[in-house]
C-alpha cells in the first residue's frame, strides 16, 4: 500500500517500527498532491520545507518520543501558521504571513507533526461548499462534478484523496461534519471550548470549534487528545481536563441508550433514511438500544444560527480594514459583504431585541431541549447532511445554501455540543455520512461508539478513484 494511504495510527506504528521514514511518508503525500491536486484543488499553499522537516524528524527519532513525529498533517487555511501564508481563502488576506502561531498548530508542531500545507475553504469559512473560496473551488475527490462540502472542504478532500495522513478543520455549524460526510471521511467536532480558538481566524466566535478530520475515528480521538485542553490565551476554552480519549477495548463494551429524533429523519429521503436504519442495525447488533424521540425541529436552528453568526461575522470582520495588514476592503467577496450587511442590520439599535436578543433566547431553548433529551439518552443520532454531495454550482445564487445544507448540524452547533460524522454508505457512488451528537464534554462517549460502528463497517475503508 502507498504510504500516503496509511491512517494516522498505522503511520505512527510504521514510523516507530522503522518500516518507513518520515521523509518517505511526507514524500508520498507530496507526490499525491503533485499528481492530483491540480484536479481537486484541496491546497492553497504547500510547506516548501516539509521534506527538510521530515528529514530532521527522522534524525531525531532515536531520542524523541513526540507522538506525531514526522506525521504530515494538512491545516485549514484559517489557522495562523507562522511560516506559511494564511488567508482564510479570502483575497483580503492574500499573502498575509502571520506573526504568531495558532494554539492548535503550535500543539501539533510540538507533538512533532509536519504541516504539509494549508487547505482551501469557503472564504472566511462562510459557506458549506468550498465553492466560495476567493481562490477557486475544491472539487469532490469521489466525483469532481460534485462539491466537497464546506467550509473545511479542502481538508476533507485532502484526507479523502490521501494527500495527507490527517487534517485539521474548524466548525461553526457543520463545517467539519458536512464536508467529512460528503467526502467520505471521519470528521469530529469537539465541544465548544474543548479546543482553543486562539489563532483561528474568527467566524462566529460563540460557536467556532476546531477539530480533526481523519481516515478513522481512532485517528480523530488521537488528534483531539493532542489539540484539546485549556488555553490561557482563550478565555472560552474549558478548564475541564481532557479525558483519555484513546480507544480501548474495555470501554467498547459499554451499552448505550441512543435517541433517534424523528424531526431529523423527516429531513431525509428514502435512500438516506434506509442508510440510517442500516447503521442503526449495526448499533443494535452491538447491544445498544435505539429509541425514537422528538427534538425541537432543526428548522428553528437555522434562524438562530443565521442571526447569531451574521452578527458575530459583521463584528469579527471589522478589523480587516487594510490599515495594519492585508488588502483593503474592496477585496471582500460578495458572500462576506452580504454577511456583514445582514449582521450589521441585526445588531443595529432598535433591531437588536428583535433579532440578536430573540435568537439568543431561542438558542437557550434549543440548549434546554438537548439537556432534556440527554437525561433520557446517552447520545442522539444525527447524520450531518440529509443527502450526499450536491453538484458544483449548487451554492451559487443561494445566499442561504450553507444554512439549508447544515440544517441538521446547526442545533448541536448552537448548543455547543460534540458530534461526529463518519462514512455510512453510498448513494449513486457518493459517500453518505452517518453521525451522533453527545452532551458537552462527552467526547469520550461519542468517539467510542463511533469507533465501535467503524469496527463493524467498512465504509471508511473505501477510497475514491482519482
Amino acid at each position, binding site marked *: 500500500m502507498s504510504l500516503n494511504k496509511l491512517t494516522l495510527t498505522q503511520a505512527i506504528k510504521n514510523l516507530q517500527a522503522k518500516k518507513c521514514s518520515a521523509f518517505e511518508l511526507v514524500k508520498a503525500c507530496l507526490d499525491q498532491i503533485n499528481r492530483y491536486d491540480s484536479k481537486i484543488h484541496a491546497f492553497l499553499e504547500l510547506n516548501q520545507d516539509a521534506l527538510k522537516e521530515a528529514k530532521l524528524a527522522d534524525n531525531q527519532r532515536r531520542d524523541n518520543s513526540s507522538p506525531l513525529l514526522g506525521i504530515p498533517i494538512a491545516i485549514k487555511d484559517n489557522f495562523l501558521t507562522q511560516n506559511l501564508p494564511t488567508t482564510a481563502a479570502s483575497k483580503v488576506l492574500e499573502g498575509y504571513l502571520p506573526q504568531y502561531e495558532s494554539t492548535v498548530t503550535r500543539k501539533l508542531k510540538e507533538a512533532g507533526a509536519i504541516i504539509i500545507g494549508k487547505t482551501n475553504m469557503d472564504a472566511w469559512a462562510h459557506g458549506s461548499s468550498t465553492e466560495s473560496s476567493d481562490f477557486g473551488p475544491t472539487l469532490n475527490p469521489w466525483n469532481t462534478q460534485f462539491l466537497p462540502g464546506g467550509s473545511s472542504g479542502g481538508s476533507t478532500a485532502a484526507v479523502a484523496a490521501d494527500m495527507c495522513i490527517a487534517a485539521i478543520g474548524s466548525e461553526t455549524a457543520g463545517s467539519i461534519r458536512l464536508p467529512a460526510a460528503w467526502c467520505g471521511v471521519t470528521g469530529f467536532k469537539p465541544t465548544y471550548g474543548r479546543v482553543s480558538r486562539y489563532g483561528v*481566524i474568527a467566524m462566529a466566535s460563540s460557536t467556532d470549534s476546531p477539530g480533526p478530520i481523519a481516515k478513522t475515528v481512532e485517528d480523530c480521538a488521537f488528534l483531539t487528545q493532542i489539540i484539546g485542553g485549556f488555553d490561557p490565551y482563550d*478565555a472560552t476554552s474549558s478548564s475541564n481536563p481532557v479525558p483519555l480519549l484513546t480507544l480501548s477495548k474495555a470501554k467498547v463494551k459499554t451499552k448505550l441508550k441512543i435517541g433517534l429524533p424523528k424531526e431529523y429523519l423527516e429531513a431525509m429521503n428514502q435512500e438516506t433514511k434506509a442508510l440510517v436504519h442500516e447503521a442503526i442495525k449495526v448499533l443494535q447488533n452491538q447491544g445498544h438500544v435505539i429509541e425514537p424521540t422528538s427534538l425541537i425541529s432543526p428548522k428553528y436552528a437555522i434562524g438562530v444560527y443565521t442571526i447569531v453568526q451574521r452578527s458575530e461575522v459583521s463584528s469579527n470582520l*471589522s478589523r480587516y480594514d487594510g490599515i495594519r495588514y492585508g488588502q483593503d476592503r474592496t477585496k471582500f467577496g460578495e458572500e462576506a459583504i452580504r454577511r456583514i450587511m445582514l449582521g450589521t442590520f441585526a445588531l443595529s439599535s432598535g433591531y437588536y431585541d428583535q433579532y440578536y436578543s430573540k435568537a439568543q433566547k431561542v438558542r437557550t431553548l434549543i440548549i434546554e431541549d438537548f439537556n432534556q433529551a440527554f437525561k433520557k439518552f446517552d447520545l442522539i443520532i444525527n447524520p450531518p447532511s440529509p443527502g450526499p454531495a450536491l453538484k458544483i454550482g449548487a451554492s451559487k445564487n443561494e445566499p442561504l445554501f450553507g444554512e439549508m445544507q447544515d440544517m441538521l448540524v446547526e442545533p448541536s452547533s448552537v448548543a455547543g455540543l460534540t458530534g461526529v460524522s463518519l462514512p455510512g454508505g453510498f448513494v449513486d457512488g457518493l459517500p453518505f455520512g452517518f453521525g451522533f451528537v453527545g452532551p458537552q464534554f462527552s467526547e469520550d462517549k461519542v468517539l467510542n461508539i463511533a469507533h465501535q460502528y467503524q469496527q463493524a463497517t467498512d465504509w471508511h475503508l473505501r477510497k475514491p478513484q482519482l
Partner: protein
Amino acid sequence: MTYSPVIGLEVHVELKTLSKMFCGCPADHFGKKPNTQTCPVCLGLPGALPVPNKKAIDWTLLIGLALDCQVNHHSKFDRKHYFYPDLPKGYQISQYDEPLCVNGHLTLSTSEESKATSEVTHSGSSDGENRVRINRVHLEEDTGKLIHAEVDGEKVSLVDFNRSGVPLVEIVTEADIHGSAAAKEFVKKIHQLIRDLGVSDCDMEKGSMRLEANISLSKDGTLPPYKVEVKNLNSFRFLGRAIDYEIARQKELLTRGQTPPQETRGWSEAKNQTFAQRSKEVAQRSKEEAQDYRYFPEPDIPPLVFSKEQIDAIRAKLPELPQMKAARFAKAYGLKPSVVTILTKTQASAAFFEAAVKEGQKVSLPPTVIANAMVNQRQAFKNPEDLVRHLQTQTQEKVSDKITLRQFIDQVITAHTQAVSDFKAQKPQAIGFLIGQIQRLSHGKADGKLVHQLLLERLESSR
C-alpha cells in the same frame, strides 16, 4: 429668566495594573517608544483573543465600592463598534447594559455653588446634602493614540498602539452637578479617592485621568432637551472654565430664544473657550458616534459572575476613605472642616498628622496645635517627631496664668456643652477635645498640664 445648570460628568481613569486589560503587554505606556508594547491581541491581529485581567476587574469593583455602588452579581463585556484608525479591532471591548458597578454616590462638602446658581431643588440633594449620584462604574480598554506629524515634508497621521488595550475605568455621574465649583470639587474628590485606593496615578498630564462634561441649562429644573458634551478637559481648572464658558454661552443662546445644538465641543486653552469640533478627523468621529455602536455581548469572554463572598472580600480591601477619615478627624480631634480638608488631602499628610498626634500625646501637645501648625506651616518637617519637637520649643513660653486659663476654660465649656455632657457620661475622649479647644484659643500656648488640671477641677466642681 434664570437658568440652572445641569451637569453630568464622565471621568476616565487608566488603571496602573502591570499588564494590559486583555493581554500580557505592559500597561505603563507613557513615554515609551511607539509600538514597542504590543502583541497580536492589542494589535487586533487575525485570530487573537482577549483574556480579561482579573486585577483590573477587582480594582474596578474597589472603585465602585468606594463610591458606595452596588456591584452587579452578573456582569459582562460588550463590543462597541466604530471605525477609527486607533481602534484596531473595529470595536472597543467595553460594558453596555451590565456594568460592574451601579448606583453609587459621592458627597460634596458644600452646596453653596449650586444654591447660588439655581433656584430649584435637585434630585440627589433632597436631604440638604450635596450628593452626586454615580450612574455607573465600568471597565473597558483604552484605544491606541494618533499622532499627527510631518514626515519628510508630508503631513501624516501615525498610530501608536502602546496604549491600545490599557484598562480604562469610566465613572459616569447623574446630572446632579449644578456649577463649576461643584464639578471641580467632585473630580478632585474622585482624584484623591482613586489615588488613595492605589489603583491609578490619575495623572492628567499623562492622560491617565480624563474628564468630560455634559452641560445644559434648565429653566424649570427638568432635564433640558439638549446637551453639550465638552471633551478632552485635561485639568480641573479647564473643567471649571469650560463649564463657566458653556453656561454663559448657552444662556445667551437661550435668552435669544434659541436652543443650543446638541454637539460635542472641545476646549481651547489658548482662546479660553469651548469650540465646536470641526477638524476632519474629529468631525468624522462625531459622525461615527452619532450612529449606533451596535453593542452586543463580547462572545470571546464568558459572562462574569460575582458571589457575595467575592464582593465582600474586595470590600475588605478598602482602605479608610477620605470622607470617612475626614469625619473621624473632625470628631476625634475637634478640628475645623477647613483644617480637616487640608490634612486629609493626601494619605501621606493624614498619616503624618496622626503620627504627630501620637508623638504629641507624650508631651501633652494637643492635636489642634499640631493640626494648625501643619496647615499654617511654611517650614517642612522630615518626620512627625521633628514637628512635635519644634512645636514643643515654640510653646515653651507657656501661658500659665491661671486667670487667663480659667477664662479660656469657661469660654470653651459654654460653647461645647455636648462635650461637657460627654465627659459627665464618662466618655474620656471629651477631655481631649476640650483641651484642644482651649489650646486653640491660646494659640497653642496654654500650659498643657495646668490646663488639664484646671479643666478637671472645673468639670468636677460642676458635676
